[in-house]
């Protein structure tokens, strides 16, 4: 399983803070993203091509090419606004 987390504006738009997703066939971040977008509706909208958001794998900033392994934690979130 991949533990997927959503934060801030994304959490509100998607209506959940996180979920486990079957790791089968998910080789890198891009394939997970494609799977989420296939859900359509708010998923396609909030995680769509034109949207600006960041992704972290195991708490480190990642890219669409970052490799995924079973048990990884993947987080999607908007650009950060701390400080």
């Amino acid at each position, binding site marked *: 399983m991949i533990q997927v*987390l959503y*934060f*801030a*504006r994304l959490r509100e738009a998607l209506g959940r803070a996180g979920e486990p997703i079957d790791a089968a066939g998910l080789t890198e971040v891009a394939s997970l993203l494609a799977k989420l977008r296939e859900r359509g509706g708010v998923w396609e909208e909030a995680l769509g091509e034109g949207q600006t958001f960041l992704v*972290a794998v195991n*708490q*480190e*900033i990642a890219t669409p090419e970052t490799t995924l392994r079973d048990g990884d*934690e993947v*987080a999607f*979130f*908007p*650009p*950060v*606004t*701390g*400080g």
Partner: protein
Amino acid sequence: MFSVSVQPEPFDIAAEQARLCAGNPGVGALVSFVGLMRDHNDGQAVTRMRLEHYPAMTEKALGAIVQEARARWDLLGVRIVHRVGELKPGDPIVMVAVTSSHRGEAFRACEFLIDYLKTRAPFWKKETTAQGERWVDARETDAAAQARWRR
């Protein structure tokens, strides 16, 4: 001492500074930056703010930023404290304090640390105005401030 904390409680600026210098007579410079919550943003009055973060990642990201600063400058100590949860105007949100032998290193490292924190640490602000709640948008100027340090 090099340490970072993320906490809902207010922090004591003077006590944090004293702790950073304690027991190290080699410290010749202490530079602190404290970010406060403004009562206005993007042309509107702001009455309250809530800071959300990604607990598992926040301290890790701050620790990595501190390591980056240590690799660039000769520092004696760094203390970063960032609040989360409910805040009101005038509340300190973040403190970045740096000690070194001489002021130049401490000044530069302090500015570098806050510039990196603002673009890399997973915090998000949601503010309350007379019109309701809104998420604060990331600023282009913050990205530009961080980009100055690239090498």
